[in-house]
């Protein structure tokens, strides 16, 4: 749905993006991660037609953002990281303003606003002044605004920034709901645990370069082809380490300081199931098995070096 092809960009003498290429598949929730100053917002602004790349090309649904920005804007909703709202108007007036700006016909405007308010659960705040809303509600209002023209693609830059835990959970539910409605959603966030739960694929940017992209699991596998699991046994007999080492696919076993065993193996879940079958067959009594997670935080720390550009 979004294709970034060999994009480079400079701010004065400083190169902020270096030959960045990535694809955001249709209908996915795509996470865009990177340390501060990596070039995430610059890339996102290019996708949103607010900045043109010095080199390379960005396509949204096959449309070049440089050649036809107005066409791209029709199918794209963008919520910047530091968005603003008009304080002295009500929620309904705010949405009506943007609906009129998007040239939604007068006859359909109310129906559209009602649908968007229902989706974002703002219906009860219809007549409330925007100034009197909480930050979480303002975030919802900003998302509601991006939905008015029914875009195919939503780009949300730090949508959960500054929200309390409840508002974050609600925001996540809203984003997942939007995905179910068929939207392609690209979001950048610093809260990696949330992204790993929500995103179907991610791209990691550092110093203006994509250092990893794909699904979280596939990136994790790409980083470390060997997998590991922690196993706790009830009254393990002598020689358990050696015994487990004979299990199929196992390449190493270590004793943990807490009494458990750390098993390194090649392969996926099937290999792990075979190890468990082997252990049970050998009379080992397994009380807990924890396969290592390819969690985003670990991947992020592994692929990025924490350098600033």
């Amino acid at each position, binding site marked *: 749905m979004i294709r970034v092809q060999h994009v480079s960009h400079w701010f004065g003498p400083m190169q902020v993006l270096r030959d960045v290429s990535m694809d955001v598949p249709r209908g996915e929730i795509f996470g865009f991660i990177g340390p501060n100053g990596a070039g995430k917002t610059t890339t996102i602004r290019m996708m949103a037609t607010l900045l043109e790349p010095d080199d390379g090309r960005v396509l949204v649904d096959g449309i070049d953002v440089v050649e036809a920005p107005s066409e791209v804007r029709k199918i794209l909703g963008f919520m910047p990281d530091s968005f603003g709202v008009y304080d002295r108007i009500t929620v309904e007036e705010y949405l009506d303003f943007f609906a009129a700006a998007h040239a939604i016909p007068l006859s359909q405007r109310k129906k559209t606003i009602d649908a968007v308010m229902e989706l974002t659960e703002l219906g009860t705040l219809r007549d409330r002044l925007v100034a009197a809303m909480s930050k979480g509600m303002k975030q919802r209002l900003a998302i509601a605004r991006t939905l008015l023209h*029914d875009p195919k693609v939503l780009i949300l830059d730090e949508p959960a920034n500054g929200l309390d835990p409840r508002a974050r959970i609600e925001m996540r539910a809203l984003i997942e709901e939007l995905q179910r*409605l068929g939207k392609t959603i690209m979001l950048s966030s610093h809260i990696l645990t949330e992204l790993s739960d929500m995103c179907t694929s991610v791209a990691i940017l550092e110093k203006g370069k994509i250092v990893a992209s794909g699904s979280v699991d596939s990136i994790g596998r790409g980083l470390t082809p060997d997998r590991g699991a922690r196993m706790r046994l009830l009254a393990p007999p002598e020689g358990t380490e050696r015994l487990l080492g004979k299990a199929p696919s196992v390449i190493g076993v270590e004793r943990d300081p807490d009494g458990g065993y750390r098993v390194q193996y090649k392969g996926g879940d099937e290999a792990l199931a075979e190890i468990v079958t082997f252990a049970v067959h050998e009379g080992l009594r397994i009380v807990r098995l924890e396969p290592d997670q390819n969690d985003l935080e670990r991947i992020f720390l592994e692929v990025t070096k924490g350098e600033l550009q």
Partner: protein
Amino acid sequence: MSAAASPEPGTDRPSLERTSGAFGSTPPGKKPSPPSRLRELLARPLRDPSPILLKELRATFRTPGFVRFLYLTTALLGLAVVGGGATLASGNEAPAEAGRMVFQLFFSLLLAVICLVAPGFAATAITSEREAHTYESLLLSGMTGTRIVLGKLAAYVASIGLVVTAALPIVGVAFLFGGSSPLAVLTGFFWIAMVLVVTVSFGIAISAHVQTTRVAIVVSTFIAIPVAMIMVSMLTAMGEGASSGWGIEVDGPFWFAHAFANRSDQWDTWAFLGFLPLYTFGMPTWFFVASAVAGVVPPSNDRSTALKVWAVAAAIGGAIAVALPPFFLTTPSDSGESAVFISLGAMALVYFFGLVLCNEPPLPPVERSKPGPIARLFSIVGPGASGTLRFTLLLIVLTAFGIPGLACLAHHVAYPHMAIGTSYDQALLAVAIGQSAVAACFAALATTLRLALRNGGAARALSIALFGGAIFAALILAAALDMSALDRLDHQVSPLLALSPIGPAFCAGILSDAGGARQSEHWLMLLVGTVGYGFLAAALWIGVEVRVAAAKRAVAERKARLEAKLAAMTRPASVPEAPSVTVSESESQSEGTGTRTGKGGSDNEGEPQP
């Protein structure tokens, strides 16, 4: 969480088409006929006004400070006018005279309020959006720059218009004394409305080009106040002229309101108090709006065409305005002299064109579609540095010849017995030839500097400094070489001064004197200067063309390189079924060795990088 569109049977995810319906896309229908389309076009602003206008009015009227300002202004105006009226009533003034003075007091105070408040208030129009981080949402909403600026203009005019309307009953104090007619009051308010529109558009233009509200308010107020004072002085001076020409009484800066009411059946009243003010207020308003639109749209968009249309209209209007005076002056010599000197004054316009139109990036906006033959023809003078410079040079030459030409024609039409080829005709020809070359050189220099510095403001400032410096240096040098050179300027111009940028103006002044000596010598110096400036302009123009051609080649190379990269990719350019996985091993590759000549980003305008 409720869904706006339910999933299709048998699938987990609803189709986009169904969500589109839920959010109100336009259903296909019959195309309306042209008359009904016209009716719709006229009725729409009332039925569905500009969203910007509605939003701004709602926000303004819900601001307690604005309501307090409204009450305070009305109360203070009322107190001042009633107090002034009471003082006059207790004096020895005749009632009608006192009434006219109250009238002048009221409108002068109203004018002062507008000039003090309107530019600063309107200067928040765009900067407040930038500072509140709502500007990008506004741009992405699909609204054009023109729609945004006109909406803001209407909203701010309406807001301050409310202050004017609230003050309207106060003018009734003048009617208590007599001496003022309702038509005079209407004329006064018409002028106030024009001043309001021009000051608000000025504030919005400043707001569109400045980053912060504080700077915008300071700049707009500090420019507007002296300009307003100069305009009031000019109005009063014009009143003195009208007093002798029309035999009317001038009792203050709003003398024209009574003059218009008393002489509304005369066509020259309509020409000077109708056409001229409309031009004087209309052209700046148009310019400020076009300038604000250029400041609002992204740099990669076409920002020059609206300004070019304005420039053509300004040139035509200027030529018509310059052609008027010969019909009102009583002697051929007065007519000839005014034609020469007003033409010389009007030449400020061609320098202004050079300044306004120099701020173009090297490349025009990317072609959205294949242009037709007419569009291709216009693209020769279209957006981009080279096209705009061609347009500017053409317009400068046409205006520099058109304005003196029309003034000359008007002079001969007004005085048919005057022979062709008199000193005035020669002086007007000198104005046309000399000023076209100097102004063309100025425009080409400003564009060259703009391309070199990549900064329109700096290029403008430097161009003015270079030309101003050249004039100043010539004056100083001429005086240093010959102490009496400046004293003799009314009948002889030294070669050094004649070759300076102000030389054509001095030569034209001397050539307009029928009895002046050394006419051929001044013609020679004028022609030498013209050829010199002409060659310099041509050289700078060629330099701009060469630079733009290089930028175009670089972009073509960049495109070819990108296509080659894409062709070399193993995966075809189609939406992948599953996300691709790439993990870079090191940072040794792709250090961005491209030519870097992208078109128009909002930060560096995509110009060739250093």
